[in-house]
């Protein structure tokens, strides 16, 4: 039943041998040895396993691998490069501005849910450059944090939005206008 599946992950093509119904998470963690997406519930309820598929956040624990063939997948590992490409930033920063903001806010505690928090927060910032508090609460509602660090995640998203906006103003980022609302 195992098939050869071609996947584009973080800009690279991979060939994996797996049954087509295998949830993407297990391919990413076991075959590609990625540490970003991780198992939290296997039910799509918590958001620990989130990745971007063509820029849209999906739950890899309930997504059959066959369904993402042909899509461009981005995990936490590939987020800074994806951000750079999408926002036309050169050279690519070491981290996505939201990752920098999470460190500045000392937001994480156990940090296990942070893969999903960062992936979802980054998706939000691509879509809405300067989200309101209500927009952030709504966008992030599907990502549980049992350490209760929500206020720090909120601050980090706001800080990242400011950083992106200010780098646009100072010209550190270029060609960003047309991709502000994707």
């Amino acid at each position, binding site marked *: 039943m195992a098939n050869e599946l071609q996947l584009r992950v973080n800009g690279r093509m991979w060939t994996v041998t*797996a*049954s087509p*119904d*295998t*949830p993407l998470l*297990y391919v990413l*963690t*076991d075959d590609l*040895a990625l*540490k*970003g997406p*991780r*198992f*939290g*519930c*296997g*039910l799509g*309820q*918590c958001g*620990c396993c989130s990745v971007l598929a063509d820029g849209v956040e999906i739950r890899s624990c309930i997504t059959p691998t066959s369904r993402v063939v042909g899509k461009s997948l981005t*995990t*936490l*590992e590939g987020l800074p490069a994806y951000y750079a490409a999408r926002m036309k930033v050169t050279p690519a920063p070491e*981290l996505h501005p939201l*990752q920098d903001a*999470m*460190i500045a806010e*000392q*937001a*994480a*505690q*156990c*940090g*296990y*849910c*942070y*893969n999903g928090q*960062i992936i979802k927060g980054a998706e939000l910032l691509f879509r809405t450059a300067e989200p309101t508090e209500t927009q*952030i*609460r*709504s966008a*992030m*509602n*599907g*990502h*549980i*944090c*049992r*350490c*209760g*660090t*929500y*206020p*720090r*995640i*909120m601050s980090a998203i706001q800080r990242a939005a400011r950083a992106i906006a200010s780098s646009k103003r100072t010209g550190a980022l270029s060609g960003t206008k047309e991709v502000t609302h994707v």
Partner: protein
Amino acid sequence: MSEGANDQPGLARREFLKTTGVVFVGLSVAEGVGAQAPAGDASAVQRGLVSGPPDPAQVDSYIAIHPDNTATIFAGYVELGQGGPTALRQVAAEELGLDLAQVKDVRADTFVSTNGFTAASRTAGIGGTELRAAAAEARRVLLELASERLKAPAGDLIVAKGVVSVRSDPQRSVTYADLLGGKPFNRKYEPVSYTGGIELPRKSRDNAIPRRRDDYRIVGTRVPRPDIAEKVRGTYEYVQHVRLPGMLHGRVVWPRGQGAHGVSNPTVAGVDEASIKGIPGARIVRRRNFVGVVAEREWDAVRAARQLKVTWEPFAQALPGHEGLFDSFRAAKTNDATDTATGDVNAALSRGVHVVSATYRGPYQSHGTMAPNCAVADVTKDAALVMCSDQGIYQTRNGVARVTGLPIDKIRVQYYAGSNTYGSSCYRDAAQAAAIMSQEVGKPVRLQFSREDEFGWDNYGPAHLADLRAAVDASGKLVAFEYQAWGHAGGGMDTAMQLAFGAAPQINQAGGGFGALFQVHVSQTDMYDVPNRLIVNRRVLGSGYLRTGALRAPMDPSVFFAQEGVMDELAHAARLDPCEFRTRNISHPRWLGVLEAATDAAKWTPRVAASELSAGRVVHGRGIGLGTHHLPQNQGDRVTFAAAVVDVEVNKDNGIVVATHVYAAMDCGLAINPGIVESQIVGMSNHGASLALKEEVQFNRTNVTSVDWNTYQTLRFREHPAVTAIVVQQLHEKSSGAGEEVLPAVVAAIGNAFFDATGVRIREYPLTPRRVLAALKSTRRAPGRSA
């Protein structure tokens, strides 16, 4: 060093290091020294080579200085997400006179680390005190050596960044590394020791004196946690990431939800092997009632665990169900124990000008780890390696020894962080299950629990029923306080062990099984000055209830919800502002300090609760709560003080209560890293809101039914409160722990805020929409009455 000198469990040591990716900072030093060390100079210099724990009376057990003039500490306290190890590095750097960047730590490992138990907020208080004493002794050794080398009295020496120089002639200097010359400290000293959490006086008069706290440069500062950057980058290695060559993926197959503990005995009636024939890669693993599956590919293991048909003997209809729980407590035969009886409560109650008599209830709650527990085990004929998340590597080792039958010194346990554990989640079960499966199949096994395994078989935080009576005199001063508490025994055998042994249901009954942790103590109430006080624990036998265990601030949320609720009821009866009521009845300056800090931050305006009720559909209120983590074993020795003010919004139409802002103050003595303490306050404020508003284990007559994030609700992003966190720094007090105390204060304050918003008192949490709507409905015709 010969290979023969370091027989490793299962794997040659070099293989061990290669396959696990474990790199000990400074191991090469230990190796080199170990080869030359005279016999009898054992423990610490054989770090990584022999089973621990190393001798706590040797400086080398805690600290190594390397040729590059850096240090490594080996304290067996782990990173659960709370930042404790960063605080310990600060303590060591401070005492040793090193910069923080010069101090590293290593993965907790039973072949490396001192014996620590990362629970009950012990890391800073106990772990920090132990390490401070060892580091002070290390510094004394170094200064002795330097005095000799530099030919200057120790009093004339100064230390910066691990370089000792002569004050009057700074050109004369020497590094720590040069002083030790690659040798260990080899210094015996009198370590700090504890009995039941109480620090014992040290006998020697010649112990090294720690640095003056007024001179601290590193302790007391907001140092960032290095693990946070790794976690945010995605490079942090959780236990879920650990892989070994030749490893199989394992899943357990347990019945849906735990049954009545001590009565129901999960017993396999039959396993239908044909049910997973379609998954050729999967194999059944069985030891008596322990059933699992293993497969090379993880998805095969997951599918097989779901598909495998196991018939279980039916569970007894012995649970009361969550609806019938408190009636069953009240009806149960109890083994009563009086914690405190001072004065004459009945007489004082009869004299009271305002008397409150009320019953409060708190639910079973789950640890709700973000990630279900996971462990990787490699068990061979004569040794075992277990990589897992836990609170104490040496405690985990004991359980693995029992299930494998291997000698304890042949078991190596290494700590890899999982997600939040909040106490005894199913991490012991995971370690044991991985070991059992590896032993059965003869290969390394990575065991990952499912969401249902974790929620369904937790050691739940205990449910609580409380009858309280209290009274004040005409001036609003407390004259009587009575607390009658119902609760039941915890523990018993871990699930994995019980299934694998095919053991009869067992439970810790009377006596020790009730555990001081699960009872109510005067230490939770003595912030109030009350001349007449009675506290009785009505201990229900645990058979027929859920298995319980320590859950962050064990019992405290329920106890403070009740106690602080009653204090608010008294304040209301006496027409006093809730803050004014507390200041009239509290004289302890540190309790008053946190109360003032929280109310100042909240810009508290004095008024009687529920005195400004709104007729709107969405109403607002604010409440106060105090909290601590009760430490019956060391009252007065290591107490942390917390106070919270919480603002809530209540929607009378749908019954949804949202905590919108928490102002929380905590005095945990010396805050080694106020930034980390502040993070704990933020986390506890949100966790507390979750406990107060959402979390409740559901179960029927046979088993637990809340087994995922839909059936077990938790606070989500949209409803989270903003938090104003206040750390009350006490440079000269003992560090007393910072991971639990705000939690009960917040739960209590939310209950009180709900009353302020609605004029209705709910005495059972969580304040779910169903409970709120029922309470509002029952009092609709009589506003201001209690439910």
